[in-house]
């Protein structure tokens, strides 16, 4: 080194030549050591120079010096200031030396210590190795150490330590205090309180940093949290860059605590924000609803007022939503879900452990939306649309008819997520896929629907009729004896009449006691895979119910046609059997009544119940755009039918009534059969009688009486039946009156107020009877029979006049007169009753219902009356 050679030269030149080499070397090393002391010197500047110069007494010298300085500045020397400084120092030192004795002891003991500049330390090494002045320099060291303690720690050391602590690492002077949970400067180090405060504030940074680091280094399952870790790590890169910058500055030794503080302000602010967010997130990690929470929090923070914070968080948010966006893309375009940590808001519905039996349930139940996990930026509507789209694709996939057509669509990006375009986009995709679905389903659906209507809803009349004819013998057996295969074979034979190939099946319901085959028979239509979603189990059940009901009514109708056929046979009976004829007439009337009811009711069902709902349904069908809607309107259609045909819970009572009516009709049929058999018997008997007329005259009378009795029984039973039937009809009509939309049915069933009239007269007659019994005892002599029965009894009565022989005309006329008187009495009594009624009506105590009934006889009764009179006249 040049310095060394120069020094060597200097020393050699200074000392006399007689010096020994060793001592020369010693000196040299000593001087070199001194030179290598690194001290923070401050060069003399202008003001000091001036001060020095004014101290000089010799003015001329001062001038000369100034002159020299000027000249020096013109030279090419590089380190002029150093040179000047050196010269002045040397002179100073020289002067100082010359003031006192030459030994250093006395020098230091003297008062002139203050004039000596002790701003530098003389390190111990040099003192130890100094050849001669060991003791003296020791003393120097001691004094300097005692005098100035703070010299041991410099700002640079502190800054070095601080750089470590802001990375969360303990260092020489700054350590981690677990009690206070912070980084703090050691208390036993003497630095100014201002520096201490600054340091502590900046150590806070280190603490925040440590916390964030623990978060970024922990392991999480959730993809969103991993993304969050990554983004935070990226943000921390900035921090690291800052630290590197600090280290650079430190090497250049231009870094101070204040500078660091100013530089750290913004990063600290960011760290604080990040920590806030993290603390909110981490408390919820245990709860399990993290990902949506994370995103919601980040979203809210990204709209923070402070622009830097909002930028920071929008960056983080960008990164963190990548997994969610990926999920959405996968779901929307692929229909698949690969979510291991269950962060996505659409999840598989395994928790209920539903056994998915058919794709109907698959559609509804396989996936579901978990509303807790929907992130903040996606609205509920959009999330449901997304859910729907994926479901559609999934379903289509399962039917193996899925064609991907996402060529038109770009994948969703994160920027799109919070905007309106997102909803529009999702909507569009949803519509496309749903269109595909509907196109796939529609033709099949229409076919199936039509088929169901024709068969299950008895649309194809002639087929149903033939089926019934063929099946009736089988179905009349008790339920246990009905076998499916027999029924199926009959069904297939019925198919021969139908042109198309149909997928019908026989379903046998659960038989209960006393059931015949009729109750358990049900037609079934086999539904294929894709349509299972629409025609699922529940819906098919309701279809079966409707079918059952309609089938019953059809059966009743069928029964009545059979009755009519029987009637045709009755026509063959010769006219002499008047009693039987009367019975036949009665049964014919009843049959007509029942037929009227059934026909009207059935037409009501087919037209108002089924057809109108059908029309509505078909209209809606064309407008429908997705599967859910289709299912809904179909269900609506069915519930509508159920409602109008009294098959739901509301119409249960009406249904019971109807079933009772049907029951009576069946009993009527059996009654008729009895009548027919009796008639046949009669005919066969009378044939015999004509041969043995004279011999068996008495017997004939007996037999005829027996016959009469039997006939009367039949007629009685018929009349009973009619009474019961009519009672039920009245109830039904009452019920129908109450509802608005059933008014038309009511009108049809009772369109000339036939039943109303009967009701009213019956009511009147009942009350009349009671009244007469109570108040007018003298009327008991004359037997007042209710008009209704009068007509039937009149049938019986003519028998007697037939067999009675009137000996004289007079007797006959007396008979007639008595009958007429009786009738007149009846009229009088009626009038009296009316008067009494009026009297009673005025009394506040009783309000007899008699008032409401018109006192006059109805047309029907009048006719009957006339009939009586005319019949009594016939003789």
């Amino acid at each position: 080194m040049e310095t060394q050679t120069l020094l060597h030269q200097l020393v050699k030149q200074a000392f006399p030549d007689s010096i020994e080499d060793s001592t020369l070397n010693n000196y040299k090393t000593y001087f070199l050591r001194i030179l290598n002391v690194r001290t923070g010197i401050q060069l003399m500047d202008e003001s000091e120079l001036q001060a020095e110069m004014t101290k000089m007494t010799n003015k001329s010298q001062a001038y000369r010096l100034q002159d020299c300085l000027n000249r020096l500045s013109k030279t090419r020397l590089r380190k002029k200031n150093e040179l000047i400084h050196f010269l002045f120092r040397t002179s100073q030192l020289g002067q100082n030396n010359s003031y006192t004795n030459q030994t250093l002891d006395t020098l230091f003991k003297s008062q002139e210590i203050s004039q000596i500049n002790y701003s530098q330390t003389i390190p111990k090494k040099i003192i130890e190795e100094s050849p001669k002045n060991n003791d003296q320099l020791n003393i120097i060291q001691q004094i300097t150490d005692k005098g100035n303690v703070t010299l041991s720690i410099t700002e640079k050391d502190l800054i070095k330590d601080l750089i470590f602590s802001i990375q969360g690492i303990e260092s020489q002077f700054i350590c981690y205090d677990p009690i206070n949970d912070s980084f703090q400067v050691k208390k036993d180090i003497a630095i100014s309180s201002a520096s201490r405060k600054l340091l502590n504030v900046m150590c806070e940074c280190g603490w925040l940093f440590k916390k964030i680091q623990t978060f970024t280094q922990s392991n999480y399952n959730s993809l969103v949290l991993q993304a969050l870790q990554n983004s935070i790590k990226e943000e921390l890169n900035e921090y690291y860059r800052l630290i590197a910058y600090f280290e650079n500055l430190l090497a250049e030794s231009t870094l101070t605590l204040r500078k660091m503080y100013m530089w750290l302000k913004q990063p600290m602010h960011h760290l604080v924000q990040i920590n806030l967010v993290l603390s909110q997130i981490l408390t919820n990690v245990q709860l399990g609803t993290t990902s949506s929470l994370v995103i919601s929090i980040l979203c809210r923070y990204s709209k923070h007022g402070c622009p830097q914070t909002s930028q920071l968080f929008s960056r983080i948010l960008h990164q963190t939503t990548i997994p969610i966006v990926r999920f959405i893309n996968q779901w929307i375009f692929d229909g698949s879900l690969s979510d291991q940590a269950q962060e996505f808001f659409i999840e598989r519905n395994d928790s209920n452990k539903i056994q998915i039996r058919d794709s109907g349930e698959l559609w509804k139940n396989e996936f579901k939306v978990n509303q807790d996990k929907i992130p903040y930026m996606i609205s509920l509507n959009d999330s449901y649309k997304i859910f729907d789209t994926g479901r559609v694709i999934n379903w289509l996939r399962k039917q193996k008819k899925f064609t991907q057509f996402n060529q038109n669509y770009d994948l969703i990006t994160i920027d799109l997520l919070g905007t309106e375009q997102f909803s529009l986009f999702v909507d569009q995709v949803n519509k496309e896929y749903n269109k595909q679905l509907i196109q796939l389903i529609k033709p099949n659906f229409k076919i199936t629907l039509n088929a169901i209507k024709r068969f299950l809803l008895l649309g194809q009349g002639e087929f149903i009729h033939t089926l019934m004819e063929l099946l009736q013998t089988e179905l009349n057996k008790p339920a246990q004896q009905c076998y499916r295969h027999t029924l199926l074979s009959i069904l297939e034979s019925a198919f021969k009449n139908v042109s198309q190939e149909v997928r019908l099946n026989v379903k046998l319901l659960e038989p209960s006691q006393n059931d015949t085959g009729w109750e358990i028979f049900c037609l079934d239509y086999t539904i294929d895979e894709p349509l299972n979603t629409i025609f699922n189990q529940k819906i098919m059940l309701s279809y079966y119910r409707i079918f059952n009901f309609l089938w019953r009514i059809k059966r009743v109708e069928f029964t009545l046609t059979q009755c009519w056929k029987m009637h045709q046979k009755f026509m063959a009976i010769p006219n002499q059997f008047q009693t039987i004829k009367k019975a036949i007439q009665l049964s014919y009337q009843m049959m007509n009544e029942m037929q009227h009811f059934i026909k009207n009711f059935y037409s009501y069902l087919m037209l108002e119940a089924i057809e109108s709902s059908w029309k509505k349904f078909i209209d809606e069908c064309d407008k429908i755009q997705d599967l859910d809607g289709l299912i809904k309107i179909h269900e609506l259609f069915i519930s509508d039918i159920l409602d109008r045909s009294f098959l739901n819970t509301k119409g249960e009572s009406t249904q019971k009534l109807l079933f009772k009516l049907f029951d009576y009709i069946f009993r009527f049929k059996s009654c008729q059969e009895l009548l027919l058999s009796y008639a046949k018997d009669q005919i066969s008997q009378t044939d015999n009688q004509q041969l043995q007329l004279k011999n068996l005259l008495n017997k004939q009378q007996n037999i005829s009486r027996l016959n009469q009795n039997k006939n009367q029984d039949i007629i009685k039973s018929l009349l009973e039946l009619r009474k019961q039937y009519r009672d039920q009809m009245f109830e039904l009509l009452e019920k129908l009156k109450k509802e608005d939309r059933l008014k038309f049915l009511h009108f049809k069933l009772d369109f000339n107020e036939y039943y109303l009239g009967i009701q009213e007269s019956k009511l009147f007659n009942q009350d009349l009877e009671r009244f007469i019994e109570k108040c007018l005892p003298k009327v008991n002599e004359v037997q007042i029979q209710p008009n209704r029965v009068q007509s039937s009894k009149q049938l019986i009565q003519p028998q007697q006049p037939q067999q009675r022989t009137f000996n004289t005309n007079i007797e006959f006329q007396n008979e007639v007169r008595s009958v007429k008187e009786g009738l007149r009495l009846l009229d009088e009594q009626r009038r009296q009753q009316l008067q009494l009624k009026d009297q009673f009506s005025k009394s506040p105590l009783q309000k007899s219902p008699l008032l409401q009934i018109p006192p006059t006889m109805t047309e029907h009764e009048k006719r009957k009356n006339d009939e009586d009179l005319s019949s009594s006249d016939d003789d």
Partner: protein
Amino acid sequence: MSNNQNNSSNLKSQLKVSSLSQEKEEAQETLEIIHEMSQILNCGLDRQQLAILVSMIENGVNPEALALVVNEMKSELNTYKKIHKQ
């Protein structure tokens, strides 16, 4: 004289001047100025020593330290002379 020449050559090499004569003159002039200053300030250094010292400073030696060294050297010299006189 040889010393002087040495010194001047040192100065030349350190000052990095191109033409020799000009360098020489300039160097001499600078040295003169410095010598005058040291004389005014009563440093007690002759030209040779000054030349070396200036070279050292130009090389980057700490002037404070150098001043100390010079001081030490002087005192050592004195003591040495005292010792060796005896």
